[in-house]
């Protein structure tokens, strides 16, 4: 009886604390997004006297000739394309690195770790991008995001390939499949759980990336959703309602991913993080 009481007391306290600490900021965002400009400028935690959430939504989508809409499209393309590139090429490396012993493996592992630890050199990267004509272009940004995410993905894939029995490879080879078919039709489908984790984690990372597009993808036409926040903040000091509506809009895609794939994110990330 004593134990049950304890469970309830601690649980209730934790729920109240978590509400104050973790949910109040999100409630604040929603309230601000529903106010008119004058009230929102107050930045106070209060209910709006008039709810203008729909009007704010329309306004934010129309501001700066629809920059927010354009940036959602840019961010969408950037996220999907870079994550697709990352998944395929990192899985190829993780697979071969785990399966094939070789003298170079320690060196490759070293480079993978270096990619995880070393901060990218910003201006020289711009210099290289200019050299190959990809600076300020979406394809350039896609390749940059793919490169910066590679190491993390390779580590996850390598750890997971170790759990797939080698006999499956042999069986596939017995059935006459070549190395490419072996990888794409036998191995890759077996990597599904970790592929899902990588897709979710990296989509959130790319979608939320701010520094990358800030440096490598300047210009209003190319702006990504994170940059619209930044621009909104500097341009429209009096329009806090639109700023917070933008914050709210940008929070929705990761929130949806999280609600649907909560379990996979958690499972995959922990297994990979502990083993890697």
């Amino acid at each position, binding site marked *: 009886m004593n134990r049950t009481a304890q469970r309830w007391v*601690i*649980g209730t306290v934790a*729920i109240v604390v*978590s509400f104050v600490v*973790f*949910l*109040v*900021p999100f409630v*604040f*965002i929603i309230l601000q997004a529903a106010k008119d400009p004058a009230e929102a400028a107050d*930045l*106070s*935690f209060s209910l709006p006297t008039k709810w203008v959430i729909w009007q704010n939504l329309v306004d934010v989508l129309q501001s700066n000739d629809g920059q927010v809409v354009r940036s959602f499209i840019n961010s969408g393309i950037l996220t999907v394309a870079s994550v697709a590139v990352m998944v395929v*090429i990192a899985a190829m490396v993780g*697979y*071969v690195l785990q399966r*094939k012993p070789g003298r170079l493996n320690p060196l490759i592992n070293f*480079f993978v*770790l270096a*990619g995880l*630890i*070393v*901060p990218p*050199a*910003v*201006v*020289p*990267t*711009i*210099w*290289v*991008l200019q050299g190959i004509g990809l600076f300020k272009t979406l394809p350039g940004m896609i*390749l*940059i995001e*793919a*490169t910066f995410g*590679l190491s993390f993905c390779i580590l996850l894939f390598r750890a997971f390939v170790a759990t797939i029995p080698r006999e499956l490879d042999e069986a596939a*080879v*017995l059935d006459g499949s070549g*190395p490419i078919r072996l*990888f794409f039709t036998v191995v890759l489908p077996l990597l599904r759980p970790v592929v899902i984790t990588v897709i979710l984690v990296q989509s959130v990372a790319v*979608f*939320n990336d*701010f*520094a990358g597009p800030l440096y490598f993808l300047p210009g209003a036409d190319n702006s990504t959703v*994170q940059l619209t*926040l930044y621009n909104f*903040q500097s341009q429209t000091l009096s329009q*806090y309602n639109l*700023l*917070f509506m933008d*914050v709210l809009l940008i*929070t929705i895609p990761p*929130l949806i991913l999280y609600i649907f794939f*909560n379990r996979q994110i*958690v499972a995959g*990330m*922990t297994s990979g*993080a*502990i083993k890697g």
Partner: protein
Amino acid sequence: MTATLTRAVPPTRTPKEQFKRGRRSRASFYPSWFYIPASALYVVLFAVPTFASFYFALTRWTLFDVTFIGFQNFVQFFQDPQLTQGFIHTFEYGFVTSAAKVVIGLALALLLTSPILGRGYLRAVVFFPVLVSTIGIGITFKALLDPFHGIVNGALGLVGLPQPGWLTDPNLALWSVAAVDIWKGVGIATLIFIAGIVAIPQEYVEAAKVDGAGSWKVFTSVTLPLSRPAMGTVIILSLIGGLRSFDLIWAMTGGGPGFTSDVIASVIYKQYQSGFYGLSTAGNVVLFVVVTAIMVPLSAFLNRKGKDL
């Protein structure tokens, strides 16, 4: 049909034999060219810029014009008190956020692996900020920490506590940002610790209890030592993130007031913005050296300890 027929006739050497025959033929099923796409990207967009940064850090550089000036950028970096401050802040920020994430994350993980009410909800809510845009979080907390209208000072005022200018007081700004960083990132730490704790065989805990250990004793002599791999992962991930941190600082204070919340990453951006590309790159090299000098021995140490267990 023909394909099946040819396959039915055993060739002189069956694929199985071929597979087993030797290193060379087995290796051909794991083609080395699978490395090529990834290494092409890695070399062109990561390795080349990193190596080039060691040269450009020694130049006055406008992207078109390069003048070699030796170590002047580094001299400037370490003589300018404002830039040196950024250097020190980077360590302070990295260590404080990382240490707090370890302690709070472990405490939360212990709480969330014990049978309490609303555990699923609590796990979800602690992890949720991890997914939200850092810039969005920064903007939100900038408003919440507003000295006059913000809810934090409002609440402090209600109970009669002092109401500091969280982001406007030079002595506080960096720590206010660090606190928000902890708030946002503690979910990852908690999650990793939960995974580590759940993986501990229950028999150990029971054996300890049979031997008469209380819950504190179980924690210090079973849970803590056995969640060491998780601890290592949390320390490494949060320290890498903390030392490289830029987004949140930029969104909340822009390095201000003055330069009191600047870290190396924000110095790099400021110098880039003002067109001092050589100096900015020198900052990058400093960050590179700092992060590597801390992370390489640390991760070697943590991994070795992990293998002892």
